[in-house]
C-alpha cells in the first residue's frame, strides 16, 4: 500500500481522523481535516511537482497522476488546496525559467513552500488573450497593475507565477510570465484579496492578488518578454492531463461508496446490488472509470513519447474525462437515492465528492478552451493516419523517454498516431464508422469555422475526436496490458453509443457486465482500487 | 372493495377453467411455466410487484369481458380467490 493511503486509513472508520466523518465536519467549516496537510508535508508531496534534476521526484507524468490519486480520493479540497497549483506554476518555470529561477522555485517547493498560479481574471475567464493584468517595462524593471482573481492559495503562497499583458499589438506576443517572490513585494502596492466563499471545494482557499503600481525586477520574467502564451500553452499540456487525472480518484471513491451501499441495502426483498439496473449502473461506471484512466494514462505517457501531438491529446483528455466522470457520478447517485443528498451519515462522502468534481477544473481550462485548442488542429490530425503510436505509450511500466517540455508543440503535425491504433488493429464497428464520419466531416470543415466564433456543429467535432481518442486508448491499453475481462468490449460499445446515437436499443453485454461486476466486487473485497493500476487501498465494505 | 361493471363483450370466449387461465397469465408475467404456479399462494410470494399485478385487470377485461377494479389482485391475492370472484361475476 502506498504510504499516503496507509496514513489516511479507512474512510469508513468513524474514528479515523482522516475518515469521511472528519472530512465532512471540516468541510462544514470550510477547511480540510486537521492534520491532513501535515501528512502531505511529511510525505513531501511537493517533491512530486519538482523534476528529479532539480531535486524532486517528478519523472513520469503518469506516475505523478497515480501518486496524487490517494489525496483526491480522500478529499478534492485537500488535493487542490494543498497545491496542485504549485505544479501548474512550476511547469512554466521548469520550461521557460532561468537556472536561477528553476533552482529558487524548486528549493522553495521542496522546503514546503507554496506557489500560486495567476492566470485567471473573473471578467475574462479562460480567455487569456484579453487579460488585463499588465506589467509595464520601466528603466529598472517592471511595474504590475491589475488583479488576478479566484486564485488558489493566494492568501498563503510564497511565490506566484503571473500571466501579464506586456504588449498591445494584438496576437500571441502580448503576454509574458513572471515569477515573483510574494514576500519581497511592497505592501503598499500589493495586497492579497479576501477569500472567496465557495459552494463546492469548500476547503480550498481561493482568493486573489491586487497590484497597484507594484515594482518587480526584470529578473522576474520567465523566458523572454512576449513568450508568456507560448510557455503557458505548453505547460497547460501537462497540467490539463494532470487535472483530468485527479478526477479519477473521485469517481473511484464514489463508485466504492455506492457499491458498499448497494451490497448493504435491501429493497424489495433483495440487496440493491442484485437489481439488474443497479448492477448495470455499477458495471457501467466502472467501465467508464477505466476508460477515463486509459485516456489519462495514454495522454500523460504521450507527453513523453509523442510530444508533438500532446497538445491535442491533453485538450481532448481535459474535454472528455471530466464529462465522463461527472456522468458516471450522476448515474451512481440514482442508485444511492436520497443518501446522495445528505451531508451526514455513512454515505455522505459521496455527495461531497459529487459536488466537488465539476468545479475541479473551474478557473483552469474549461471545456470551451479545450475545444478551441483542438478545433484548428483537427484537419491536420485527421488528414492522414500517422504511423501507429509506439507500444510504450500504452504499456504500463514500460520505460519512458525523459519528459522534455521543450519538445511540446502548440500545433500537432499531420497524421494522428493514436487514432492510427484504431485503423491498425481493428475496433468495434461503431467506432470505425464514427472515425470515418469524423474524417469526412473534418475534411469538409471550412477553416473560418475553426476559431472562437466556431459553429456548434464544428465544436461538436472536437467532442467526437475526444471520444475516438478514448477508444484508441482503450484498444491500445487492452492490447498491451492485462485488463479486466469485459472492459474493452463494454467500453467501446459505450463510446460508440456516445459517438453515434441510434434508434436501436443499446446493445446488451451481459457477459461483459457480469465479468466486470465480479471484478469490481473482487477488488472491493481485496482492498484494490478501481483504476487500471489496481493500487492497494484502505477501505472496507459494511459488515 | 372491488366492484364490477358488466359490459357486453363481443368477441371474447370465456375459458372453461378460469383458474388455469389466470395461472397462465400470471405465469406469463413472471416469465415462468403455468404449472409452477400454486393456485393458493399469494401472488406477492412469487415476487409479482403489487402495481404490476394491476395489469391483470386488462387481461380480464379483454378475455372475460368484465371491467374490474384494478385492485382486484390486491383484494383477491391468490389465483383461486380471484377465479372464484370472477366466476361469480360471470354467472
Amino acid at each position, binding site marked *: 500500500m502506498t504510504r499516503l493511503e496507509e496514513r489516511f486509513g479507512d474512510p469508513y472508520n468513524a474514528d479515523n481522523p482522516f475518515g469521511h466523518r472528519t472530512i465532512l465536519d471540516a468541510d462544514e467549516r470550510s477547511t480540510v481535516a486537521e492534520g491532513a496537510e501535515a501528512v502531505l508535508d511529511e510525505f513531501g508531496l511537493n517533491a512530486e511537482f519538482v523534476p528529479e534534476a532539480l531535486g524532486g521526484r517528478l519523472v513520469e507524468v503518469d506516475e505523478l497522476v497515480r501518486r496524487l490519486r490517494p489525496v483526491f480520493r480522500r478529499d478534492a479540497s485537500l488535493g487542490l488546496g494543498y497545491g496542485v497549483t504549485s505544479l501548474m506554476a512550476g511547469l512554466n518555470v521548469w520550461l521557460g525559467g532561468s537556472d536561477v529561477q528553476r533552482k529558487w522555485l524548486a528549493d522553495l517547493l521542496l522546503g514546503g513552500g507554496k506557489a500560486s498560479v495567476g492566470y485567471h481574471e473573473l471578467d475574462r475567464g479562460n480567455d487569456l488573450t484579453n487579460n488585463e493584468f499588465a506589467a509595464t517595462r520601466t528603466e529598472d524593471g517592471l511595474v504590475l497593475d491589475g488583479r488576478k482573481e479566484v486564485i488558489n492559495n493566494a492568501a498563503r503562497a510564497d511565490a506566484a507565477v503571473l500571466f501579464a499583458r506586456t504588449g498591445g499589438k494584438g496576437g500571441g506576443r502580448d503576454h509574458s510570465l513572471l515569477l515573483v517572490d510574494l514576500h519581497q513585494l511592497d505592501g503598499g502596492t500589493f495586497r492579497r484579496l479576501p477569500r472567496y466563499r465557495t459552494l463546492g471545494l469548500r476547503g480550498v482557499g481561493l482568493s486573489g492578488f491586487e497590484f497597484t503600481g507594484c515594482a518587480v525586477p526584470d529578473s522576474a520574467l520567465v523566458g523572454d518578454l512576449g513568450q508568456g502564451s507560448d510557455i503557458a500553452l505548453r505547460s497547460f499540456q501537462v497540467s490539463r492531463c494532470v487535472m483530468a487525472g485527479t478526477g479519477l480518484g473521485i469517481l473511484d471513491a464514489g463508485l466504492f461508496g455506492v457499491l458498499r451501499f448497494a451490497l448493504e441495502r435491501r429493497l424489495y426483498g433483495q440487496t440493491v446490488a442484485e437489481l439488474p439496473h443497479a448492477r448495470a449502473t455499477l458495471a457501467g461506471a466502472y467501465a467508464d472509470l477505466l476508460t477515463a484512466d486509459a485516456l489519462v494514462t495514454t495522454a500523460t505517457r504521450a507527453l513523453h513519447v509523442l510530444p508533438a501531438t500532446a497538445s491535442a491529446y491533453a485538450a481532448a483528455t481535459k474535454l472528455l474525462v471530466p464529462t465522463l466522470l461527472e456522468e458516471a457520478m450522476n448515474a451512481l447517485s440514482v442508485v444511492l437515492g436520497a443518501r446522495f443528498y445528505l451531508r451526514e451519515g455513512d454515505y455522505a462522502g459521496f455527495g461531497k465528492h459529487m459536488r466537488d468534481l465539476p468545479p475541479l477544473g473551474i478557473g483552469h481550462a474549461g471545456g470551451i478552451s479545450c475545444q478551441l485548442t483542438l478545433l484548428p488542429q483537427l484537419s491536420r490530425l485527421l488528414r492522414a493516419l500517422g504511423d501507429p503510436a509506439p507500444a510504450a505509450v500504452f504499456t504500463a511500466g514500460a520505460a519512458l523517454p525523459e519528459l522534455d517540455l521543450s519538445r511540446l508543440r502548440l500545433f500537432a503535425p499531420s497524421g494522428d498516431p493514436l487514432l492510427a491504433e484504431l485503423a491498425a488493429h481493428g475496433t468495434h464497428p461503431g467506432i470505425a464508422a464514427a472515425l470515418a464520419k469524423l474524417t469526412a466531416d473534418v475534411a469538409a470543415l471550412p477553416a473560418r469555422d475553426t476559431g472562437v466564433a466556431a459553429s456548434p456543429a464544428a465544436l461538436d467535432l472536437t467532442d467526437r475526436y475526444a471520444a475516438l481518442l478514448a477508444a484508441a486508448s482503450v484498444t491500445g491499453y487492452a492490447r498491451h496490458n492485462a485488463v479486466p475481462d469485459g472492459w474493452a468490449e463494454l467500453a467501446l460499445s459505450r463510446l460508440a453509443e456516445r459517438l453515434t446515437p441510434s434508434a436501436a436499443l443499446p446493445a446488451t453485454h451481459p457477459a461483459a457486465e457480469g465479468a466486470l461486476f465480479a471484478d469490481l466486487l473482487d477488488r472491493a473485497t481485496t482492498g484494490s482500487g478501481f483504476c487500471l493500476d489496481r493500487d492497494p487501498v484502505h477501505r472496507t465494505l459494511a459488515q | 372493495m372491488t366492484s364490477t361493471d358488466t359490459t357486453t363483450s363481443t368477441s371474447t370466449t370465456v375459458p372453461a377453467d378460469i383458474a388455469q387461465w389466470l395461472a397462465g397469465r400470471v405465469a406469463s408475467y*413472471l416469465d415462468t411455466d403455468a404449472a409452477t404456479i400454486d393456485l393458493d399462494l399469494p401472488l406477492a410470494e412469487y415476487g409479482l410487484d403489487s402495481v404490476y399485478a394491476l395489469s391483470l385487470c*386488462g387481461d380480464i377485461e379483454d378475455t372475460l369481458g368484465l371491467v374490474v377494479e384494478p385492485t382486484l389482485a390486491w383484494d383477491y391475492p391468490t389465483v383461486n380467490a380471484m377465479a372464484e370472484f370472477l366466476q361469480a361475476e360471470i354467472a
Partner: protein
Amino acid sequence: MRYGAFAEAERLEGVLGDPGDPASVFSTAACADLDDADGFPTDVCAVLDGFDLARLYVPAEFGGGLVDYQDAVQTMRMVSRRDVTVAVAHGKTYLGAVSAWVGASREQAEKVGALVRSGLPISWALTEQAHGSDLLAGGVTATRTGSGYRLDGEKWLINNATRGGAVCVLARTDEAGGPRGFSVFMVEKAKLDPATHSPVPKQRTHGIRGADISGISFSGATIGADDLIGREGTGLESVLKGLQLTRTLCCALSLGAGDHALGIATRFAAGRRLYGRGLTELPAARHRLATAFADHLLAEAVSVVGSRSIQALTGEMSVVAAVVKYLVPTRTEGMIASLRKLVGARSLLRDVLEDGAFGKVERDHRIVSLFDGNTLVNLNGLVNLFPILLRTADNATAPDTDGIRAAATVTEPLAPMQHKRLSLLPRKGSSFLLALPAAVAEVEALAADDDALAPLATAARALRTALDGVYAAVRELPAVPVNVPTTSFVVAQRLAACLGGAALLQLWLRTRADALAETGPSTPLWRDGVWPTLALDRLLASVGTPTPAPQAHYDTAYDVLTAQVGSGRLTSLFDHRLAEATR
C-alpha cells in the same frame, strides 16, 4: 399569448416584489443567507401565509380555493423561481393533505381542509430509514386498540416532520403487509400524548438546506379511529393516487428552478465579453442558451398539458404523472448543468454573481428528481404499464379526444376536478399515445399548405416512428416484473419521451390559433411551429433519432429568450410579467 393559469401567480408576484431587491423579505440575498445557515425560511413562509397560499392546497369541494390544478402549478412556480427551498417547505402541506382528497370521506376531507386553512403545516410520512421507496416494506405499525389505533415506529427523511403540526402517516395495519396491509392516518401532534412521539433530528442536506428534512418516531402513540383516512387497507391505494397528483405538481419546482437558472445565465451572457467580443456574439454560447431554452419550453409544455390532464384526463394520470415526473426534472437537471458551463467559475462562488444563486439552484433542484418517487421509481411505473399500453395500441383503442382537447387547449375552461376518477391504471391506455398518428397527420396536412411547417412535420413523423420502435421493443421484452432488466428502463425512457412529444404536439395544435391571434413577446415561438420543432429536436435526440430543427428556429428562440429576460418576463411559451418587469 397570455395563459389564464397565471392569474394567481401574477397576484403573488405583486405581493412578493422584485427578488433582486435586497430589502424584500423574499429576496435572492435573503434566501442565500438562509441557505448558508441551513435556516428554515420562516419569514418568507409567513409572507406566503399572509397571501393565504394554502387555500390553493385545498380543493374547492372541500372548502378551499383550489379549482384548477394548473393554477397551483403556475403559482408555486413563482415561489420556486425565487427559492426551491421555500416551495418545498411550504408546498409540502399539499402533499400531507392529498391522501384526504383522494381517499377520505367528504366529512373527513372537509376536516382536513379546515386544518390546512388554519395554517397548520402538514407533512407526508411515507419513507423509513431502511426502506426508502419500497413502501410495502414499511415497518411503522398501527395496531387496533379498543377505541382507535396505537402507532409505533419511525418515519425518516420526512419534509416538515418536526415543524409540521400534523403528519399523514402510512402505517401497517395488517401484520402480513401486502397491498391491502397498509392504511393512512392523519395524526395531529397536538392530540398526542407528548411522551409517545419524538422528532428525529433534521438531516443536513446538500440542497434545500433550510428545509426541515427530519423524521418522527412513535412509541405507543394513540390515535382515534376517525384519524384513519378512508377505510383500513386502502393506504397504498390512496398513496398511489395521491402521488399521481403530487408527481405532476412537482413540475412547478422544476419550471421555477429552470426559470431562475435561465435568467441568471442569460443576464450573465449579456454582460460578458470574451475573446474581444460579447459572449452572446459567439455562436456556441448563443446555441447553448437557445438549446437550454428549448429544453425549458419542452418541460413547460409537458407540465402545462400534464397539469391540465389532472382534470381533463383524470383516469390516465398514472401514466401522465410518471412521464411528467421523469421527464421534467431530468430535462431541467441537464439544462442547468449545461448552463453551468456557460456561467463558469461564478457557479462556484457565493458572492460574485446574483448571490451565488446559480450554484444554489442547481443543488436545490436536484431534490426534485429524488423525492416523491425518484427517476427509477417513475420509470419502473411506466414499465408496469407496458402491457396495457401495448394492448390498447394493438387494439386501436379510441383515444379520449375530448379529454385531449381540454388538456391541450389552454384557453378552454377545465371541468371541475373529480378526485374519485383517479385510477391506478389507465384502463383505456394513454390517449396522447393513441392519438399520436392522428396528430402527426394533422401536422402533415397543415404542412402541405405551409412550407414553413415542413421541419415540424418531419419531426412529428420521426416521433411517430420512435413510438413504433418503442412498441416493437416492448413486444420483445421479457415480462419480468420482479427484476426489471436494464433494457426495460431504456424503453421506458423512450416511451416517456414519445408521450411527452405527443402531448406537446397536441398543445401546439389546439392552442396555436389563439396564440397567434394575440401579439406579444412570445408570439414568434408559436409561428411556423418554432417551439414544438425545437422541443421535438431535444426529445428525439434523447431517443437516438436526431432530427435537428433549423438554425433559424434556434435564432428565434434565442431572440425571444433575451427579450423575455431583458424585460423581466417569465421564460415561457406565454407572456407573463414578473415582479421585476421593466416594460
